[in-house]
């Protein structure tokens, strides 16, 4: 398992956060910390940051699956340390 930080930029649609959280829950991974906030004054764009532990070989797939969520614009995953 790998300790990772995930940064997501998304259109501020309702339900994005649920979809993101569900993607982890459906695979049996729990999110350790979660922070979300709007990025501009009109509140049309949001950022979501997550820390969690994931198997190394699943990282790329999870990134692609996150990008598949229609309102999500960009995803970056940083590896913190190996557990």
């Amino acid at each position, binding site marked *: 398992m790998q300790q990772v930080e995930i940064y997501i930029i*998304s*259109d501020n649609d*309702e*339900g994005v956060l*649920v*979809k993101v959280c*569900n993607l982890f829950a*459906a695979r049996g991974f729990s999110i350790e910390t979660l922070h979300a906030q709007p990025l501009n004054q009109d509140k049309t764009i949001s950022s979501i940051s997550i820390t969690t532990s994931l198997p190394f070989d699943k990282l*790329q*797939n999870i990134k*692609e*699956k996150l*990008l*598949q*969520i*229609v*309102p*999500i*614009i960009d995803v970056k995953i940083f590896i913190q340390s190996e557990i």
Partner: protein
Amino acid sequence: MKKNGARILLDALLNNGVDMVFGYPGGANLTLYDEIHKQTEIKHILTCHEQASTHAAEGYSRSTNKLGVVFLTSGPGATNGVTGIADAMLDSTPLLIITSQVPTYVIGSDAFQEADVIGITKPITKHNYLIKDINKLYDTINEAIFIATSGRKGPVLVDIPKDVHAQVVEDFIPKKLKIRNSYSIKTEIKTEEMMPGIELIVNAKKPIFYCGGGISASSQKTIENLYKLVKLTKFPITTTLMGLGVYPESEDESLHMLGMHGSYEANMAMHDADLLIAIGVRFDDRVTGKLEKFSPNSKKIHIDIDPSELNKNVKVDVSINGDCGIAIEKILELLNGKFLQDLSPWWQQIDIWRKVKCFKYKQDDKSVILPQFALDRLYELTKSKNPYFTTDVGQHQMWAAQYCKTLKSKHFITSAGLGTMGYGVPAAIGVQFANPNDLTICITGEGSFMMNIQELATLKRYKIPVKIVMLNNNYLGMVRQWQDAFYEGRHTEVDFTDICPDFIKLCDSFDIKAKIVENPSYLDDGINEMLEENKPYLLIIKTKRDENVFPMIAPGAGHREMLLGQEI
């Protein structure tokens, strides 16, 4: 112009070329059905259960490449449709599901027929929307249709509350479609991306094409280009269950289907190959068997429109993200003038595997029909008409895939990913509506047939000439086969002898002709009689009770460990 929400919805659908929808009315979508009553451009097909609406729309979509549209009501209407939506998700079928919701001012109050449809369908749709503002309705429908039909296709659900359907806009002016920036599809494949793959193709001595649903979902031009590519390279080609028909199975290069119940030659060739060219496939567990034993000595090229499929189950050497139509065109272009390796030793080896004749069977007994024989005869007697086959799920599905050779793409329509029993009859209804002049045959078993048996009423109402061929062994055959193979023959709840109704009487009450065939010598007459009828028809073929589907790769085994059955 003054319009209400329901009319704006119909306008948006018409603007996108929709001329047929499947659905079921209810309390929350009364306004929508009132608008349907007032117009003639969109034909509405009423099924007898919401699940059947979604399957019918899938059949309509998969036989034509058009969008399938479903109208459902709130609460139970939507939850009944969930199986069909999940099925469309796993088979990447473009559907637009319009569910109606309780009025906005009671959402969240546990109102009558309220369910959190957006929450329920989130994991089984490509995207979903709840529309609370009528000014966003038109744009959202346009965007939903674009998302459903572009990239890797899939179901998109739009939930519209009852009051939004009824709300009136005084001066409605349709706007042009603007797609959000976050949804982008790769429309181009660069030559540099293709070159490592081309190098592998040029040097391959034991190559094989492994093609799937991605090509089935593609345009006719892609199918033609694939044909050209296979003829140019002379590489063998095997397809998944979803890809049946992308290359005519009558041609010499076709090794038929691969995987758990696939052909011996296809699985052995996959194992021994030195190059795998996987196009529009997802390395499903039913195809690969045990991953560690999957094609161990090959270089692998994977072309897929969905980047999350690349390197998901199997690590590949060259992964190309993009539309398989563009990729195949590029390969054809780049191979122009290049010399390929001599493949004659590879074909000699394949011919040795072919001699095993893994699909052979012996119809010796004069009193009982083997299911393989029944489908073999069905194929032989119908192949000149190029029928559309739909199937349910179970033993008959695998036998249909093995014996009803598919010569054209989009002609074998089956629930592959989700494996939904009860898919066949409603899907056949959708196929028949989309192709009114073609022969549509649903191959089913008694278990699957009874899951959506109410659709006989839809056949009765619309009098569409769907032919249903039921292989009746009074068992849930596939479950029984697994109980025999892996649970020491303890048969639990699989015997249907006491459950099955008198199908003849049942069909009689729906004004549908039905006939039972029990003897092999009357089989051809029974099939011909069915084909002559220009009405819905149920042909019940009583088959050998304990026949098993072979060849088979047991779960957890590799491609080389095929079980070929006792007689071979």
